[in-house]
């Protein structure tokens, strides 16, 4: 399959838990998650997701993280003085499945199967993001995901997509209208999302 971005996308982690509508990926680097609302894509299964939750936790849940910087003069110094921290902590992110790709076609509905565990996860390049967001049907999948902060995610996602599109302002109007038809009966909610994406 051709590289959609023209550049090799950046690999950020690996799928560690998976379900029909979302997957969890563990990052290779501490704090190495793509930003909320950005598009990611799994390796061979070509499932696209939108980052909806990023968390950094101890690898061993029985050993909670303790505050260590009382005498440090900067935040960097805390990690410098405790080099083991990078090994004891891990960053994970959840991604809502926004569609998948079969052949050259982007499909804005759920794949038949979720991406397998240990699939590589790549952050989409701007070109790939632009290509995937040429159509806007994925907004429906996001809005109906049922997660608590979905409005934030949709807002962040549209902002990210607009940044990747050649005509960002035009894209936002188009996306806004798609949102409006989804939320036709709930104008206050529509309005609150629009305020988040307004250029």
């Amino acid at each position, binding site marked *: 399959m051709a590289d959609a971005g023209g550049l090799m996308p950046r690999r950020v982690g690996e799928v560690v838990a998976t379900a029909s509508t979302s997957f969890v990926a563990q990052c290779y680097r501490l704090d190495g998650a793509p930003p909320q609302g950005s598009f990611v894509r799994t390796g061979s299964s070509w499932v696209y997701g939108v980052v909806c939750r990023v968390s950094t936790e101890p690898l061993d849940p029985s050993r909670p993280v303790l505050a260590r910087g009382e005498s440090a003069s900067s935040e960097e110094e805390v990690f410098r003085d405790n080099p083991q921290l990078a090994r004891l902590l891990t960053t994970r992110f959840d991604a809502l499945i926004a569609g998948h790709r079969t052949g050259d076609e982007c499909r804005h509905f759920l794949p038949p199967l979720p991406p397998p565990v240990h699939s590589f996860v790549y952050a989409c390049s701007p070109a790939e993001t632009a290509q995937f967001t040429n159509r806007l049907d994925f907004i429906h999948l996001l809005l109906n995901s049922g997660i608590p902060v979905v409005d934030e995610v949709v807002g962040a996602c549209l902002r990210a997509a607009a940044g990747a599109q050649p005509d960002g302002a035009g894209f936002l*109007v188009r996306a*806004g*209208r798609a949102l*409006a038809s989804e939320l036709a*009966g*709930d*104008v206050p909610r529509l*309005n609150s999302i*629009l*305020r988040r994406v307004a250029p």
Partner: protein
Amino acid sequence: MTGGSQGRFLGVVVDGSLAHGVEVRLDAGTSVEEVKAGAFVTIQGSGHRFFGVVTDIALGSTDPRLKHAPPGMDDPFITQVLQGTVAYGTVSVLPNLVMPVALGDAVETPVAAKTIPPHFARTHAASERDVAAVFGNEDERHFWIGNPLDMEAKVCLDLDELVKRSIGVFGKSGTGKTFLTRLLLVGILQGGQASSLIFDMHSEYGWGAHDSDGKRFAKGLKQLFPSRVSTFTLDEESSRRRGSSTDDVVRIGYGDIEPEDVEMLRETLNMSEVAASAAFNLQQKFGQRHWMSQFLNMEGRDAIFDLAAQIQVQPHALGALYNRLTRLKRFEFLAEKSERNAADRIIEHLERGQHVVLEFGRYGRNLTAYMLVTNLLSRRIHGRYVERKEQAEGGQGRDPRPLVIVIEEAHKFLSPAIAPQTIFGTIAREMRKYNVTLMVIDQRPSGIDSEVMSQLGTRLTCLLDNERDIEAVLSGTPGGRQLRGVLARLESKQQALIFGHALPMPVVIHTREYGSLESYAQLVKRAPGRQPHQGTETPEERLEREIAELF
């Protein structure tokens, strides 16, 4: 709007019914401000292309909360997104016609729509070409009366249909009724379908006159078509002062006045019914030719009371009749004896194919004089036409040439109380059979008998704002309810709503220019292929002419 085959895209059909028209939801890219009531649209159904008119424009929203808590509109982005999506415009369209499949096909013409377009049918603004296909091109049968709003296409009236039935021209004072009537008269004159007899109350059709604002001077018919228009006057002095060249002066003898004429003047002369009907008794006693002169020559109260006893009428009623009729003596056009019969001379001119304008001069300001003369002359002409038509049916002579009688202040003649009695009520109801129709010009159509209104074939109305007047004009018109809004929003000058037999569907027009040198030149120019009409022709002659034209 473009001259191409299709105008700009407006939106899609989302609702509707045949009775009330369809609702078109405007596309997000179209602002409600770009659509005007009265504009034409085409709707592409799956099998037919519909042609309709915008009757109403509304705002809608998907969420009822929107109007209680409008979102902040300070952000242009949010405004841009919400407009046309959750807050949108709709237009109501009355699909009047189904267009022929191939435009420009001379055989197929638009026909009345008996169904409506389906859901999501795409709606476009009508192009110039669509409008021309519906309202025809100017030719010998079609007269260009004006243009649709904001369009260059011409709206043309079918003159044959126009003169076949009575015509109504309505509108408030100063909205352009006179200009519209002048145009109609030029159309009828140029088309040659009929003669016209104009009872010119304010002396503005025959010779030129200033418009009601006194700003513009408009030429009259006699100036434009000197050889085809004859002007008669009741007030020689006034005509001379205005420089109007008149062909003849009308004098009416007492012997021509009939009791029916007196009865019709009851309201303007402020007479009781008993007093007015005493005229019939007088007619019986003295005979038609002499009742009035003999009665008015009586002197003294006692003589009148004696006469009352003889003819069995209440003395006071007869006294009142005497009083009122004495007032008529002031009219200089009335004479005890008139050598030449005015009605006969007018009929002579009409039969020669001339158009006759009767100027009232100073008597135009006197409603009694106007009503008396119009009623009297029309009755005579009516009688003659009935006679001629019956003769023609019996195989003797020709059909009388169709005639359009133009009267102003029509509600005075055609009010429900007197319409059944006056000659105009009769003409409006049944004279079509005898080739006579009316053109009524009025500012209070609600005062006209509804039976007469229902007989008007074509109605042209300038701005009206009285509810009852609007109701009266639109009564009995399909889609009348939808046209109300259009009518109430006409501009006060040079705009008119036209509907009826002479054109395929109701239309708001910007009236054609009348008053500039260029407009006169255009009006006087004969349309290509138009034959001058010489008098009337028998059915055989017509058949021969038509055969000759065919081959």
